[in-house]
């Protein structure tokens, strides 16, 4: 199994074997993170840049430290102080970054499809760190890693994704990834936040937590954004919390050893209760560590081989 991609843009395009390779490679990477000396010389002489057009300290830092642990030179392009603010076109910005000699770009953008556009227009490798409401592949990979680590397998698990499915790139990427491992995926949330024809993605849609969570192995809780309420998609955060906040009373519908995930940052008391977030089923903190491991694996797989060969 080789990882022969110039870019990682989404989970939809990845094969089961590629996902498996990334997750397997992340295991020794996690060992490195747990050592006293966390640095390995693997990507010495390689340079990567994180370009975030949407704020996310968490994801950006995770990529940055993953690069540093592997000895790649890592630069963060701070968008607010860059030429983007001066109205430079994205194409020109990318070209400028490219000629500085970076091997790989990690891109976060609020608009769906922008990493695809960038990847088409640059020789650098591009990793999508979340684009609009489309995909967030590294989040799905770290979720899958966390699930596999706890459950021993992904095969055939029942997974519920709770909340704002309509706007969630995390949901989409998880659906693509998990369905390649035969998981039974359910999405649950208010009807206004369930996207049209979502069941054609091979998932089952629910409006009721009780029904959706019955016998599930995993619950992945999505972050709810205040703007959605302002856009009139649900009447109030209180009503949302009353119906969809994951709390201890819901866990009894699920399997006894149910795993609770959340991509963070959490709105406690809105989509998840503190007692669940901190309870024994939660692997929310472990997800963060696993995120670094999975990103190290990706950086290794994408920058570790000879570029000519990968392109060819």
């Amino acid at each position, binding site marked *: 199994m*080789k990882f022969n991609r110039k870019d990682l843009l989404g989970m939809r395009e990845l094969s089961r074997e590629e996902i498996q390779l990334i997750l397997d490679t992340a295991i*020794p990477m996690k*060992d490195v993170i747990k*050592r*006293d000396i966390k640095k390995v010389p*693997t990507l010495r002489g390689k340079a990567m840049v994180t370009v975030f057009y949407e704020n996310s300290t968490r994801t950006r830092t995770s990529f940055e430290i993953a690069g540093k642990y592997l000895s790649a030179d890592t630069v963060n392009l701070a968008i607010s102080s860059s030429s983007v603010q001066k109205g430079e076109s994205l194409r020109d910005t990318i070209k400028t970054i490219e000629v500085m000699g970076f091997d790989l770009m990690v891109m976060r953008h609020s608009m769906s499809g922008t990493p695809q556009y960038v990847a088409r227009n640059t020789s650098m490798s591009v990793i999508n760190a979340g684009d609009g409401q489309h995909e967030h592949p590294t989040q799905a990979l770290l979720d899958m890693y966390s699930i596999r680590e706890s459950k021993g397998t992904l095969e055939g698990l029942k997974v519920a994704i709770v909340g704002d499915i309509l706007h969630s790139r995390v949901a989409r990427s998880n659906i693509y990834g998990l369905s390649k491992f035969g998981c039974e995926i359910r999405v649950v949330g208010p009807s206004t936040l369930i996207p049209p024809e979502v069941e054609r993605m091979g998932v089952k849609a629910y409006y009721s937590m009780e029904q959706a969570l019955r016998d599930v192995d995993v619950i992945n809780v999505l972050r709810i954004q205040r703007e959605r309420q302002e856009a009139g998609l649900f009447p109030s955060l209180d009503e949302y919390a009353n119906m969809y906040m994951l709390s201890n009373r819901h866990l009894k519908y699920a399997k006894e050893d149910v795993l609770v995930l959340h991509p963070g940052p959490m709105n406690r008391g809105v989509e998840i209760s503190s007692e669940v977030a901190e309870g024994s089923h939660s692997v929310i903190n472990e997800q963060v560590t696993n995120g670094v491991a999975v990103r190290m694996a990706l950086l*290794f797989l994408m920058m*570790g*081989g*000879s570029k000519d060969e990968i392109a060819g």
Partner: protein
Amino acid sequence: MGVRDKNTIMDEMAIKRALTRIAHEIIEKNKGVDNVVLIGIRRRGGPLAYRLAERIEAIEGINVPVGILDITLYRDDLTTLASQPLVHRTEVNFNINHKTIVLVDDVLYTGRTVRAAMDALMDLGRPKSIQLAVLVDRGHRELPIKADFIGKNVPTSKQENIAVLVQELDGDDKVIIQEIIGDS
């Protein structure tokens, strides 16, 4: 590029004898094995390290800790390889600080693998010393590295390849000399 087997230079018995001799030499050189740990380099150094530990235990009655080192992340040729090798776990579940480490590998050739292994070990802790045990030394060193314990010296040309087979991974114990055919 392909290879063609030329001849077998060590059979099962020869390997057994070589490992037994190395076990004795390790004990002798270190005046016992109280502070010694064995670390095999993935992949074939691993089984060889475990076998050495068995022999040492048979001789000295002491169970020497064995670890496995994956050096992929420390290789100096990663960016020139056609594709990335698989990364595996390093399994050294003991403290190596102040230990005498005997690094075990199947073949010593350019020395680059051993260099990577020493770097990897240094990131795991601060051993007292590192010694090197190999089943075959085939020459052609590119770095100033020398083995402390050698099963067999085999002069080779660069057009040849040494293949070490071990029961645990290959279902057979032998060392073969192969000819590299075609463009390399």
